[in-house]
């Protein structure tokens, strides 16, 4: 009796296992898609009911018979590990939405965009965005969406303290001091995120604002330039003087945004969708934007962040042409203004295609100003093969400096590892 029971149990489990991995009919094409989780609505949009009562997958499958989507929404925390594991397991996704691409391209894992992207769609992308995804004259990925960073400040707070929004580093220190004095330290004047999540952004803000950056004028790595060291030291100085959030090594930009939304932080560098974010959190902050402060005599540039969509090779696919066509159909559907505008505006991002601009500006006039900002943005040098290493390297250097190490030494070591 007990034996039969145990056997039954095992059988049910085995059955449940295999039934969960259902097989698909042979004449259908199934595309494995990984989408990053941009916010609380991403899941609903792609898999739930967030797209006017239906979702992306259902609508796509209804409009494109013969193509099935196996779509996963993955959080940014896990996506790199997940993609790596899947590549190592020979189980790479067909379509991937992520920020980086150079490593995948250099290891020969990606399909060139021209192999699958319909021409009319390709023409539709902003050319300066496409240019960010070129290695050896080949385009390896298309832009998914973008955001531009700017300085957001709490207008009421700055008025109360009687200061103007800072444009230079020196002014930033003055304003910070005034805020500290006025609020007895209850409000953080400034936010810095040097976490493993986005510490590279901090590096960009303070080096670009000092005429430095990740690369020199010729596009070669120059992480240890004098300008960079000065810039990072300035940021570290802000932390030491108590002008910032207390734990920059573990407080992410989202922690900072939460503090800003709660009225505990006066100024923060954040992407254009901050107002939406604050409203979602129930915050009621009278905020305005300004340029990111730069060192005296230097011009700050706003920071653009762009994510990408790319397609992986799959040499085992029986019909490559059909697969490419299916990927093309996916992109067509994705960037169809009817779908794309909703997707981009849902999380408050900026679009990557011309055809979406009109509809977006019509829905929200503030988009127009941001689109101008986007035109002057600097981007991370993500097309360079060592970008992953540089990104991790500068974060590690910043964090080491936070614990007392000399930033010059740290950056020298990173530079040596890059060129040596």
């Amino acid at each position, binding site marked *: 009796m*007990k*034996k039969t029971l*145990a056997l039954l*149990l*095992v059988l049910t*489990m085995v059955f*449940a*296992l295999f039934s*969960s*991995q259902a097989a698909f009919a042979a004449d259908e094409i199934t595309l494995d898609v990984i989408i990053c*989780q*941009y*916010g*609380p609505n991403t*899941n609903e949009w792609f898999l*739930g009911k967030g797209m006017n009562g239906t979702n992306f997958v259902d609508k796509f499958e209804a409009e494109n018979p013969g193509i099935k989507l196996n779509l*996963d*929404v*993955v*959080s*940014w*925390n*896990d996506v790199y*590990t*997940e993609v790596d*594991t*899947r590549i*190592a*397991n*020979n*189980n790479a996704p067909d379509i991937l939405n992520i920020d980086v691409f150079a490593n995948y391209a250099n290891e020969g894992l990606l399909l060139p965009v021209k192999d699958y992207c319909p021409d009319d769609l390709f023409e539709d992308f902003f050319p300066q965005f496409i240019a960010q995804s070129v290695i050896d004259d080949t385009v390896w990925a298309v832009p998914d969406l973008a955001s531009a960073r700017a300085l957001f400040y709490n207008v009421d707070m700055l008025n109360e*303290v*009687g*200061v103007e929004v800072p444009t230079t580093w*020196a*002014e930033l*220190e*003055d304003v910070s*001091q*005034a805020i500290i*004095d*006025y609020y007895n330290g209850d409000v953080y004047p400034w936010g810095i995120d040097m*976490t493993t*999540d986005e510490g590279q952004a901090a590096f960009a803000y303070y080096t670009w604002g000092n005429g430095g950056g990740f690369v020199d004028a010729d596009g070669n790595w120059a992480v240890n330039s004098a300008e960079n060291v000065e810039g990072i030291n300035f940021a570290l100085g802000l932390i030491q003087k108590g002008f910032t959030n207390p734990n920059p090594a573990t407080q*992410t930009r*989202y922690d900072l945004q*939460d*503090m800003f939304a*709660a009225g*505990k932080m006066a100024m923060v560098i954040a992407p254009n969708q901050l107002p939406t974010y604050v409203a979602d*959190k*129930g915050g009621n902050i009278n905020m305005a934007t300004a340029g990111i402060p730069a060192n005296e005599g230097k011009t700050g540039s706003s920071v653009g962040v762009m994510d990408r969509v790319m397609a992986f090779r799959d040499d085992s696919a029986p019909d490559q042409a059909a697969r490419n066509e299916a990927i093309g159909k996916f992109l067509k559907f994705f960037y169809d203004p009817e779908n794309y505008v909703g997707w981009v505006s849902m999380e408050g991002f900026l679009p990557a295609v011309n055809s979406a601009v009109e509809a977006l500006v019509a829905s929200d006039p503030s988009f127009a100003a941001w689109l101008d900002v986007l035109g002057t943005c600097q981007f991370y040098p993500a097309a360079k093969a060592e970008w992953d290493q540089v990104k991790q390297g500068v974060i590690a250097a910043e964090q080491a400096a936070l614990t007392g190490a000399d930033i010059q030494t740290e950056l020298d070591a990173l530079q040596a590892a890059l060129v040596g």
Partner: protein
Amino acid sequence: MKNPDLVGPNRRALLFVILGIALSLILLSMPLYSFDACVYTKKSPNTFVGDEKYRSVRAEVEQVADGYRAQGMACEIGEDVLERVNSKGETTSLITFTVTERMSRSPLSLLGKGFAASKVLALMLGLLALALAAELAGCVGGMDLVQFRLDTRRAALRNLAALSLLLALLLVPVFILMNNYAFSRQIGLYTAGLLEEGKEALYTRMDALLFEGRMGAEIEKALGGLTASHSGLLWMLMPAMLVSLLAAVQLRYGSIQSSAMKAALYFFVVVVCLVTLYPYYVMTVTAFRSNAETLDMYFLHLFPTKWIWSNLSDIIHRGVPRYLLNSLLVAGGATVLAMLCGIPAAFAMARMKFWGKKAFLGFVIMSQMFSPVVLLIGISQLMNTLHLNDSVLGLMLINAAFNQAFAIWLLRGTFVSISPEMEQAAMIDGCGTVGALTRVLIPMAAPGIVTALIFVFINAWNEYTIATVLISTASNRPITVGITQFSSFNMIEWQYLFAASLVATIPVVLLFMSIEKHLTSGLTSGGVKG
């Protein structure tokens, strides 16, 4: 039974009871609370002493102060000038004007003012009075009685006295902390506009306490910059009452040692249990908060203002049932497999003699130590080769294998402790070895087997590291990995994280509690034979 030698010590004890209570009363009537009612604050940036802005602001402040003085308050105007030279070489200045009044109040003055702590204080005083009365009544004419032969009336009275003193003692921290909360935090929250509930009531009480009700509608301004503090002497209430309590215990039992030991024991147990339960309180409470409340930077509520039960239904749409099913498959499958392989092996180890038994035993003991974590890379490589990566089946096999040694070891211990005679009898009756095992030994060893079973199940259920590495598809994740989607860096949804955690934790905790009795015996008979 009487013992005249006891009169001296008993008198002394009674004296201490009275002394402690008296000291407590004295402390309570001392002005230990001081209030700096900063009734008005004006911060004026970019203002310099003597300039036009300064004069106008100063005049404004004087006017306010005069208004308060008219109400009979002794106000002082404070002026704090903070000047700095900024990066451009300009001097900036921030002047803070304050109108303050300093007051002291005794704890007793809270009586009848309607504060939450007032009732506590009244109760405390009542208990002290009761203790005193009961002790005196219990002692009159019985000072020479031997404690363990007291008549019931006296014993009951002395018990009552000790108990009252214990309760009064426990109320001291309650009283002090309640006041701390009301005077500093609650008023701070009201004045910052973060809390509305109960504001009127508390303000009226504060008015009564500090200004004899003179302020009326002005009280809101008057409490604007209140800083309240109490002297450290207030805490001396505890030793004072402790003296009384110890003396009362002495009067009741003749010695304080065993009672003190018992009290210390309970105190320790309560502390251990509270600390242990604390994370579970946090988990439960946070699971039913709204997102905004989980990120509340003003720490307004210990419990959710509104219990959001829909958090539970929300996580259903976020894949949690799927993750739970996967966990169940992994843990259940691993347990069944580990038992199917482990029971025969343990049986052979316990009952049979063969070459290499000792070596195998050594190997089993040693491989309990092998953790899959340190072998991560090897395991992921192996699973690739076997095409078991990213599958529930693979996870199940790994968990079964790594718990195998432990299961064998536990089961072997159980089998060894059961005498082989019954099986031998069964076999003589015509059962085969398998029959003897399934019909005789397994039922007899059931408690041990259940323990091993649950151990393996819980280990597999709680496993996280291997699953993070092996599983890449969302739909194959076990719950431990699944919940991490709620703590992604761009949006931590604590409420969902903990709602899912709660669902994942309750069944295993219950399972474990069910074998708690066998835990100790299971550990001794198996892996950790003493």
